[in-house]
């Protein structure tokens, strides 16, 4: 046993660091995400021993090694299923899933949508770099059509998923987007996800500077950011631009339009808690080229959690019926032989 520093409450960012060397490529967006998560955890005062981080396989999925909490680096695509077992059997734990676009959208797509459907109390951070990083750069289900990679030398024919749209379709109750390079906004979004009781998804646009460098620079670079990013703010109109001089409204057929000038007051007022999912869907499926890219919370609706429902049945059954092992076995039609 080697000595490690003991951590007196309240915890600081540093307390969440482990003794493992961080093994992402220098310049990888994953570093900023790690930083934002540690920042959020410190803000929220998360206890190390009450937190479990479950990941799949991928560069992103190495995340747990760098967090001084319980960590389970599992197998490709299965983190939501494993985390569902963790959370359902012990709802007191604070359970996080860290995954990638390949891990969550490709091999793990089914567990992902079912976690959304069930509303298990998991916080899912999906690092979307639109590429398979760990296996050295094949296109992923979020890569744009025509992407040239080693497995698609003439350009990929696949259309990409919108993870936000997919999650909305699957019935997710908290769905948000952040970007690696927007640290404070990301930290804030992670805090919001943490506060949500049901399944919370944060899609995080992450730059893979080795295999998909600049995937997001069209809207993240300093010079273009203001014009290309749409911050979703609950209760506020959808405005963007350095001077908030542009807005998004929807026509009678829900088709999005950019408005300016006098029309600015027709900008849609964002309600992340709307009962019907259609406005969120309209935003999630806006063309990335034509429209600004929305970040922040697309949807937030409270609805009883899966694990709560399960454990409530157990508690009720237990209080209704006590049964010893003897009573359990010596039940039904029994008879004696002497």
């Amino acid at each position, binding site marked *: 046993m080697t000595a490690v520093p003991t951590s007196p409450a309240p915890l600081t960012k540093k307390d969440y660091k482990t003794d493992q060397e961080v093994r992402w490529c220098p310049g990888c967006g994953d570093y900023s995400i790690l930083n934002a998560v540690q920042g959020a955890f410190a803000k929220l005062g998360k206890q190390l021993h009450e937190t479990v981080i479950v990941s799949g396989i991928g560069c992103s999925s190495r995340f747990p090694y760098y967090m001084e909490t*319980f960590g389970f680096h599992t197998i490709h695509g299965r983190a939501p299923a*494993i985390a569902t*077992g963790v959370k359902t059997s012990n709802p007191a734990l604070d359970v996080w899933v860290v995954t990638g676009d390949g891990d969550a959208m490709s091999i793990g797509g089914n567990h992902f949508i079912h976690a959304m459907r069930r509303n298990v109390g998991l916080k899912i951070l999906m690092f979307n770099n639109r590429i398979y990083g760990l296996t050295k750069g094949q296109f992923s289900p979020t890569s744009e059509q025509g992407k040239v990679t080693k497995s698609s030398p003439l350009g990929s024919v696949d259309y990409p998923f919108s993870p936000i749209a997919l999650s909305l379709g699957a019935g997710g109750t908290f769905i948000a987007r952040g970007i690696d390079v927007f640290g404070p906004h990301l930290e804030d979004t992670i805090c919001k996800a943490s506060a949500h009781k049901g399944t919370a998804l944060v899609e995080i646009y992450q730059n893979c500077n080795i295999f998909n460098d600049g995937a997001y620079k069209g809207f993240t670079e300093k010079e273009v950011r203001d014009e290309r990013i749409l911050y979703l703010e609950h209760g506020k109109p959808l405005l963007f631009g350095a001077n908030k001089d542009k807005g998004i409204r929807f026509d009678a057929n829900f088709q999005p339009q950019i408005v300016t000038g006098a029309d600015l007051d027709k900008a849609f007022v964002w309600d992340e808690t709307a009962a019907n999912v259609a406005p969120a869907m309209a935003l999630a499926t806006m063309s990335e080229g034509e429209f600004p890219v929305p970040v922040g919370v697309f949807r937030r609706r409270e609805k009883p959690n899966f694990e709560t429902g399960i454990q409530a049945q157990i508690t009720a059954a237990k209080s209704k019926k006590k049964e010893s*092992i003897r009573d359990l076995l010596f039940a039904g039609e029994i008879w004696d032989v002497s």
Partner: protein
Amino acid sequence: MQTSNTTAGTEKGLQDLDQIVIRFAGDSGDGMQLTGDQFTRTTALMGNDIATFPDFPAEIRAPAGTLPGVSAFQLRFSSFDIHTPGDAPDVLVAMNPAALKVHLKELRKDGILLLNTASFSALDLKKAKYEKDPRTDGTLDGWRVIEVDLEARTLEALATSKLDNRGKERCKNMYALGILYWMFHRDMAPTEKAIAQKFAKKPELVEANLMAMKAGFAYAETTEIFQTAYRVPPAQMKPGTYRNIMGNQSLCLGLVAAGQKAGLQLFLGSYPITPASDILHQLSTYKHHGVVTFQAEDEIAAVCSAIGASYSGSLGITSTSGPGMALKAEAIGLAVMAELPLVILNVQRAGPSTGMPTKTQQADLLQAMYGRNGECPVAVIAASTPADAFEVGYEAVRIAVKYMLPVIVLSDGYIANGSEPWLLPDPEKLPAIPVKFAPEGQPGTKFMPYARDAQTLARPWAKPGTKGLVHRIGGIEKADVTGNICYEADNHQHMVDTRAQKVANIAADIPPIETIGPRTGDVLVLGWGSTRGAITASTLRLQKDGHKISCACLRFLNPLPNDLGDLMRGFKKVVLPEMNKGQLAMILRAKYLIDVVSFSQVNGQPFKSHDIHAFLQKTLASLGSTRDAGSAKETRR
């Protein structure tokens, strides 16, 4: 069905027999499983030993009256200790021509055929692929045929019932049951009670069913066609309290009892699949024992959720059958690497692929042993009878927790749906299952997730939520002790060896192999799983004939018992009947270099003990073993 003596005192004759095999066969909709089940309960309560074998049609409903739609239930009861539901039935109840067609050939010569004549129209015959009416073309020659128009009789009997005609007709199985109750001198009271309970909310159904049963009983008693009733006196069974139990049920009870004893919350992650679904169903009813059941989106999520549950300090279980087992392979590998307790139940069915879901087989042994990438050893244990499944379920939990590893439990469709009287264990005497979660970490120390118990090599079970235990594990190779990712050659070799050694260590817990018969001789018959009954029956018979033959049934398949090699070497020949192409035989041959002879049958049906008997006889003959003349019947003990 051998007559032993005749008792006077009943209106008609009453004959004592020492055993009877009855098969009910009819359309899926005819209620044959229910009828068989009622007969079984009554007979169990009357003190006979009993064994049952339901033979379901393919899962999907076939059109009424066709061959694929036939459902059967065989039961054997006796006044001595029995091991199988019997080979050829003494009595066949055939509810329609299709049932007749499928099952008649199995009825033993001179056996009784109770034939429902209600549906023998040309169309009915065609559906059953009969060219001519079998009642008139000599087909039935050689059997004692009793023809009854069950539908007409039942309608008559229920003249006063408020049910519509269709409802009345559906009671015909109870009419048939009444006839059999009279024939075999059974008590109707338990069935009366059961039916009253089952339809508690529909009194008119209770009334009609019981009326039909009693009418059948009366009909048999009064009509001329039945000359004798038979009686099978109670068996001399070990003293104690009994309960009739089916395999899936008893497996569940074993798990729940073990969970209670260990003080662990059970978590079942499962996805429905024949013939394992009833485990999910049954465990779902034990919420008052704190059992969490999670019906997952597929088998992968099922096993993964169970791994997550074990990780968090519950006992993770997953239940499935062959195709589902194939899907779980990758995740079981993770559990092996993470060294977490996990119980995996495979109720085997006939494969490969979808195969024949309602038929039995034991061809998933090698999959259990080797069906994962890399060197990925797990413990493998097998249930051998419906009652045995209790102990096996219990043992699986004990081992998983003690050694911190996955345990695969093999059962099969024959065990799962078969039933037998179960001598209930004393709950106090069930083995202890000590669980030691890692204690809170001391400030200034770092928790070592792969520090090992010196004796078992188990790593600590560290429950998230416990202070000072934060650590990281995963499916990548880890350095021993620290659990950090490690790609070093020596470490990997050490970890591969350690994981193998952990499984090997379990052998220390295995009691000496119990044999039936001496530990040396001419032939040793080995078995595992549901072949046990047929093997035991044929061995006992050959022992009675004076042969130097013994048998043993292995519960532990990985690791194998320490005394197995010596035991085998004490015989001239080792024979291993399996419902596969010789899977355990292969493992034993490789390990011990002994010429274990595989006796294989892969047809979706359990072995018939007379087939095993014949094979063993031939084997004995080839060894020049002598044979006394004698009864070919199983011994009483």
